């Protein structure tokens, strides 16, 4: 369900930040999956939980670098709509 919402967000939002939020949704869906599978299907291990820990860490890292790039783009173009990013074509 979260995945569906995430994908719907990515497709509908033209704003780069909106896409990032959609990505965060999918990542969260994956984390929930990991923990749930860990808890209900393979309760003797903690692999799923460990993976979720790293997912959270890397999501933070990804958001940081994405926002830095967005800021740069905004400085140069004054918008962050993906449709405006059309100088390069072909």
């Amino acid at each position, binding site marked *: 369900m979260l995945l*569906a919402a995430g994908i719907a967000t990515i497709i509908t939002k033209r704003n780069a930040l*909106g896409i990032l939020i959609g990505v965060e949704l999918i990542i969260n869906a994956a984390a929930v999956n990991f923990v749930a599978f860990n808890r209900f299907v393979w309760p003797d291990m903690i692999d799923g939980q460990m993976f979720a820990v790293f997912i959270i860490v890397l999501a933070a890292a990804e958001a940081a670098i994405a926002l830095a790039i967005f800021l740069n783009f905004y400085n140069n173009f004054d918008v962050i709509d993906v449709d405006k990013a059309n100088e390069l074509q072909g």
Partner: protein
Amino acid sequence: MVYTLAQSIPAQSLNQVAPFLFFGFAALTVVSAWAIVLSQNIVRMAIYLLFTLCGVAGLFFLMNAEFLAAIQLIVYAGGTLILIVFGVMLTSKDPFQKLVSPIWEQFLGCGIGLALLFLLVLAMANSVIVPHESLGTAPEHGVRAIGKALLSEYIVPFEVSAVLLLVVMIGAAYMARRRA
């Protein structure tokens, strides 16, 4: 997905209130996730994301992953979300502007999303996932177990992510630096 999982909860593992809590958190998560899809204002989207993250943290908590619930709240809701909100503030001239996307795009997005959901549910129904019963060996799920695993079995990802964070910090600092 959450619903199917909820059905497989062993009754004895949770106390009486837990199922209600589970559905409560699941509902919170899912409803606010769809609210993100439907909302047309970037600030509201960020706030709904906050609710989704809190709902996920609640789910973690109910699935015996207390440590994860804690770092979900601290790192994700407290850190990543704030980053996004900063991003919103720094990049929009008017935080309340409407982001209107064409109606057919909304339908397309929701359609693809729902189709994938349907596919997943279908796949789940057709896949045999045998729940492996816990053997009563009291698997450690607490912070202690995670700490131990981090420094033994998972030492490589742990160290690598440390290096990664350093590199990302350099990269982000460089990108966001003012014009010289």
